[in-house]
């Protein structure tokens, strides 16, 4: 029987260890279930939130203040003429499958990023890169078609994470990166991550991360009420926000994201191709009243697709003051009275809440509105990919993504030679002052064209357990780095 007691003792110890390790687990709610897990192949920010900086890492990383920091590249410099970016890579790093990270795999990742066939939705951000050269086992030289001061920042975006040739093709289902966590897999609708023992930096305090994706607002509020969620980075629009802010076990944190919340218009759908109609929509919406969806935040109202945090920001919020009268006049001018529009919504709480106000505002100027709710997958497919919509309400969380208005293939269906030329000049601009001036021009152009109805900067009110430390206050990029979290 002695052996048996040993067994019991071992079981007891295991149970103890189990209890001990359970406290190093964190449950993060992200609301939108990612279409897949490869951040280089989807515009869905929720994939980046779960994967970037946790499973995948880039050559550089953007920190919580939005600053560029070394990551897989320990240092870099730009050549005198600005036409080369030379990066020195960290040695002795392995992917989760044991494959080494070298200049070869980095070059593969960047070439894949630049390959139009590979389908990286952010490929255009890296269009300055002409050629990738392996200059040594841990040395990479990027040959640029033009100087690009933003390139180190962009290399820190989720679209530019490093992958390995062996695993790149299956990253969507079985992601293999160099980050502090590896993916254990899906259990029901939860994504489980655990600390990678071979991580090249210090082991993180949190050993297990569980991402949950609860689209249903009631269900999520219920989960929060039951204390099942340790961190929800975007609790701003919760109806139960006031109740939750009274709880001592949860902390609400005010912050801003780089996300512009807009009513995106499909320019290919008449009469949205009519500038008067678009301006009527901009006048119809009462942005200030809309902000009541945030019980405890006052995000800045915007008049263009640009962050007020950026030094080149131009104040355009009052370009289209709330005026139902002016809106009706413009609609009458465009002979678009009795207009009927469908507002297609992704399943985010801010979109649903804001849509109620937008619908009332549009109805107030005589537009009949139908609200259509879609799942995230449906939204990505129908709206983003197939551009089968009239109006949609969404936040563009990618930082500094003004270039999307220069793209023909973007879901707005907005085509402007003027803007494209402007953007080319912005990219070629060497001087910062020149760049900023051009960026200001670009903002004004988008506002004048009323390309979309620009609403406000999306607040990032993280709600998390009071004893959880290390949560990002702002969200300069969509990411929830578990590595930086710890239990107090």
């Amino acid at each position, binding site marked *: *029987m002695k*052996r*048996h007691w040993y067994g019991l003792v071992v079981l007891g110890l295991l149970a103890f260890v189990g209890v001990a390790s359970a406290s190093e687990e964190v449950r993060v709610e992200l609301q939108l279930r990612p279409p897949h897990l490869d951040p280089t192949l989807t515009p869905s920010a929720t994939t980046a939130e779960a994967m970037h900086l946790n499973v995948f890492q880039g050559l550089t990383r953007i920190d919580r203040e939005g600053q560029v920091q070394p990551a897989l590249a320990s240092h870099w410099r730009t050549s005198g003429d600005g036409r080369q970016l030379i990066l020195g890579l960290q040695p002795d790093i392995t992917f989760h499958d044991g494959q080494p990270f070298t200049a070869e795999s980095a070059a593969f990742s960047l070439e894949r990023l630049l390959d139009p066939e590979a389908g990286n939705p952010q490929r255009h951000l890296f269009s300055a890169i002409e050629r990738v050269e392996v200059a040594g086992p841990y040395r990479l030289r990027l040959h640029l078609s033009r100087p690009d001061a933003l390139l180190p920042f962009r290399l820190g975006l989720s679209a530019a994470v490093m992958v390995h040739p062996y695993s790149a093709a299956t990253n969507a289902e079985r992601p293999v990166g160099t980050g502090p966590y590896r993916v254990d897999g899906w259990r029901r609708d939860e994504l489980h991550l655990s600390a990678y023992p071979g991580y090249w930096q210090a082991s993180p305090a949190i050993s297990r991360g569980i991402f949950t994706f609860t689209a*249903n*607002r*009631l*269900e999520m509020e219920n989960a929060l009420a039951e204390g099942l969620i340790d961190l929800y980075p975007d609790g701003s629009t919760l109806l139960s926000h006031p109740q939750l802010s009274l709880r001592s076990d949860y902390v609400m944190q005010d912050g801003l994201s780089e996300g512009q919340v807009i009513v995106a218009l499909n320019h290919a759908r008449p009469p949205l191709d009519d500038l008067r109609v678009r301006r009527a929509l901009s006048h119809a919406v009462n942005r200030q009243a809309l902000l009541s969806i945030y019980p405890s935040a006052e995000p800045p109202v915007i008049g263009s697709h640009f962050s007020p945090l950026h030094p080149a920001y131009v104040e355009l919020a009052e370009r289209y003051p709330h005026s139902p009268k002016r809106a009706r006049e413009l609609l009458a001018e465009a002979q678009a009275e009795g207009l009927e529009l469908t507002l297609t919504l992704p399943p985010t709480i801010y979109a649903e809440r804001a849509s*109620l106000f937008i*619908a009332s505002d549009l109805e107030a100027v005589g537009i009949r509105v139908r609200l259509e709710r879609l799942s995230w997958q449906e939204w990505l497919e129908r709206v983003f990919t197939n551009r089968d919509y009239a109006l949609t309400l969404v936040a563009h969380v990618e930082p500094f993504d003004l270039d999307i208005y220069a793209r023909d293939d973007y879901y707005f269906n907005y085509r402007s030679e003027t803007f494209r030329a402007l953007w080319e000049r912005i990219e070629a601009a060497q001087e910062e002052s020149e760049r900023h001036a051009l960026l200001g021009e670009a903002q004004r152009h988008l506002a004048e064209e009323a390309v979309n109805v620009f609403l406000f900067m999306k607040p990032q009110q993280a709600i998390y357990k009071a004893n959880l430390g290390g949560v990002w206050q702002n969200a300069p990029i969509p990411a929830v780095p578990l590595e930086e979290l710890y239990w107090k």
Partner: protein
Amino acid sequence: MQPAMGLTTRAAVLTALMVLVAFGAIALALSTFSKYRDAVGFLADRQAQVLVTTSRLLQQSEGMVASTAMLMLAEDHLSRRQAMFEIADRKEWIGRLVEDLAELRDADEHFAPIYLARDRLVERLEVLDELVSQRINLREANAQQALPDVLTLARLAQVEAQIAEVIRTTRTLSMDLSVAVGYHLAAARQESQRRVDALAEETRHSEALLKASGLGVLLVVLATVAFIHHSVVGRVTRLEQALRRERPLPEEISTGGHDEIARMARTIHRYVDRINHNEQRILTMNRELDFLASHDGLTRLHNRRHFDQTVTQHAETLQAQGYCAAMVDIDHFKQVNDRHGHAAGDRVIAHVAGLLRGGLPDNALLARYGGEEFAVVLPGMAPAAALECLERIRRRVAQTPLLVEDAQIPVTVSIGLAPQLPSGEVEHCLRAADESLYRAKRSGRNRLVLRAQRAGDAMGERA
């Protein structure tokens, strides 16, 4: 080696049995713990999930009532849409909760009423949404007019009536939904209880089995001890006791069985047997030596030394009861030896000794006294009777020739007989008988001469 089980084998079998029973008990205990763990895990995990899911389901189905109230009370489209969003969220979540429940409870036959009640309720709520929307529009239209419009008011009253009707049906449908969900909550509770009961029962069963196993181990241990005591200690002790005797008896050494102790016992048995046999032989030899010390080897009669000792020992008795003494000598014995050889001579001596032995009474003392000479003392016998007895023997000898290798050897004896002398001493009497023998030889042999009483006999002088 014997085909039967040896001590080692039996000990090994018992040990194996003990180990087997012990391991069986351990395995049983482990399996009980494992079952217990599984059952507790199931209860904690799955049943808890079922209970949580059904509770949430109940909460959401009851929440439908709140959402209905919110919709009914909506004063503008924003509130109305918000209510409808909430209703859609509840509908979607109820659907998923039911799916979860169906998966958790491995059953689907009873879930249809929930879906049905939910869908009918939502259907009615959509109708309500449309009516509320109309009401909002009519109220707004009314508010914009300076004077109340009769038609609008009539339409409004009609819509209000329809809303009241829909509300009544939604109330019933909400109840149906709650009842359908409540059924599963109760079922889940019952299932939990059943699981707990089954677990308790199984634990009790395992407990009894474990106790029995413990008892089994104890019995096997006792059996082992008894076996060792009986088969080893007991037998070795008995063997030791048997061997401790001064003269161990082979029949006391138990040699039954086929094991190592039995083989050892048989070896000891054979050894003891051999020792006893040898001892018997030594005793026989000793008896033979004793016999030869007092007897004559050829005739098996007493020898002269023994005869003299006996006579001396019993002298008083003889004198008291009276006796006669006689000396017998084979006639012409030298010639027999010379003619027929010493072997034939020996046979003649043995032949005469046999006839003497046969002819004398049982209490007569008889010994081979010299080469072919015999001494006889006849206690309590009168000279006349002695004479008659000895004369009969003499005649018998003379009439019984010895047959040696087809040749008849005639044998005769001369006898000198003397009665008890007045001195009473046997030695004197024998000497007197010897004198008579001498006379008999001188008188022609094959005769008996009785010594006559003389005057000097009383003084005990030489006759």
